């Protein structure tokens, strides 16, 4: 079986990349292929890379309280491109926002303190490889 391929990126201004860099290492150690785009990406660019790299999942990380605007925009960009790649959101996400984000089409949400196991499982489940 080919390894799961995950695109990791941050959208817009938010520069908090500690979490995303740790997640990248967790996924890599779990045998996944990580395409690390890093900071200041546009949703269009993330989708283009995900399509080109035949990614199984897109992971985005938001720490600036902009998740209610930015995460749905990411999902929309994937759908507008006619793709069905699951979008996983990490970062500081208050519980009360989870429902709205799930309704907007976010596949999984990983908050502060999520363990490596939880992170890897969330990606596997999203990529239908659990």
């Amino acid at each position: 079986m080919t390894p799961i391929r995950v695109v990791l990126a941050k959208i817009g201004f938010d520069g908090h990349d500690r979490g995303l860099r740790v997640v990248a290492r967790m996924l890599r150690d779990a045998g996944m292929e990580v395409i690390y785009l890093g900071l200041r990406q546009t949703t269009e660019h993330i989708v283009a890379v995900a399509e080109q790299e035949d990614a199984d999942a897109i992971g985005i990380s938001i720490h600036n309280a902009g998740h209610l605007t930015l995460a749905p925009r990411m999902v929309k960009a994937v759908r507008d491109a006619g793709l069905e790649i699951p979008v996983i959101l990490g970062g500081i996400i208050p519980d009360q926002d989870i429902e709205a984000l799930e309704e907007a089409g976010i596949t999984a949400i990983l908050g502060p303190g999520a363990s490596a196991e939880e992170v890897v499982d969330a990606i596997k489940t999203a990529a239908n490889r659990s």
Partner: protein
Amino acid sequence: MSGDPVPEAGQAKSSEAAAKSAWRQAYEAARLRDADFETMSGVPVEPVYGDVPYPGQYPFTRGPYPSMYRSRLWTMRMFAGFGTAEDTNARFKEILRHGGTGLSTAFDMPTLMGRDSDHEWSEGEVGRAGVAIDTLADMRDLFAGIDLSGVSTSMTINGPANVAMSMYIAVAEENGVGRSQLAGTIQNDILKEYQAQKEYIFPPRPSMRLITDLMRFTSAEMPRWHPISISGYHIREAGSTAAQELAFTLGNGFAYVEAAIAAGLDVDDFAPRLSFFFNSHSDFFEEIGKFRAARRIWARWLKERYGAKDERSMKCRFHTQTAGVSLTAQQPEINIARVAIQALAGVLGGTQSLHTDSFDEALALPTEDAARIALRTQQIIAHETGAPDVIDPLGGSAYVEWMTDEMERRAEEIFGHVDRLGTGSMLEGAYAGIEDGYYVRSIAEAAYEYEKKINSGRRIVVGVNAFTEGDTGPGNLLRIEQETERYQLKRLAEVKQDRDETTVASALAGLVAAAAEPTTNTMPAMIEAARAMATEGEIVAALEDVFGTYVEPQIL
């Protein structure tokens, strides 16, 4: 170099006695707080115990001043900023009313990135993580009704620091407060942005030019202003170890010293106004060792490598903030205990100012109640524990002295690496380490190692991987409504409507001309642009035309 200097055996007694009497003299000349320096049970305590070096004596391991908190407590500087400038202004006034003695400003993400509220990426970010400042009009609102000659203001901004500084100067002068009266600090530490926090705009070398412009400007015109706060805080938050925080921060400090010397300044003209900003995390003795080592290393390098003659150049004075990254979303109220311990480490480490985090900050910006508890925590340390009555009370502890030496030794190893990268220049070493991903990779590896220890249970984080019962959820969180963004966009549109476009265009052209000429100081032209009501985004864009825009190498 490790350990404090030990005098030769024969002279030891007399030189120690001389050091003690010199300290005693300096201490007695200092004005002391109106307080009874005795324990709760009425036992009088001496200002300091132990041997050389005494506080205020090179290499300042025990503190930069002879009387430390016996003269003046640390500044309780609480970082605040959210929503519109008016909202933050109200929070500032609240802080002053509650006995806070310094103002500290958090800006929102677009402002920190040098973009206006109407930039495409600003949607959803305006006023969320700090205050939105687009033009001089917002800066006026931010400080309305506050006498800028009577407060010390700290502005936490880096890439566009000189723009914020220009607007602050312009507001003060509109209110009849001359720039020479302004006291405060602007963070303006761009190296750690490429290394850790990632709020850069221009490439490293032109950014360094802007920093040296502000250093030259403040050296000449703003004697009470600290033009840079060299910050390890964000390096630590990004995942570094304590020793990496110490070494990268001081290493960056050496780089700024070299840049300023290269720009023609004398080390003793600017070094006394450099200040530092450290993190205080939960490993109590490691933190205290780190703070003590920072003072000793800085003193030695400034004297021995950079030839400083003025002792003030050798004094590492720093602000401390408790570790935001240590706050847990689980059982958030237990963060109050973490913050208290971290704050005490900062005080025992001899910090000059302190910000205590609010317990709810793992989840959102603090509520007013949580911010009040955080300030009260400092007041308990100041007024109930007796900690400020004795200077460097842990000095002489075998463990603390060993830890101080060990932090210094580990930092020196890292300095050696950076110095080699720069073939004998700490400034070139910093550039090289940014370009080849050395800093980013070292910090990310340390963050991952730490995470793995938590995952495996080898390191316990209370409430996260042990003792997890009793989590009742987050409770009340501060919500910033979309209303802020709508208001700010309207305000920006109005300012643009009312201003004179010809004045704006000519001010921006003046700035471009200044920037294009490497020896011209850009500050006067930038202040003119601020007065002309040019937006922050316009000023930054004008500079990008000359300097370019930085893109991080894609190194994991």
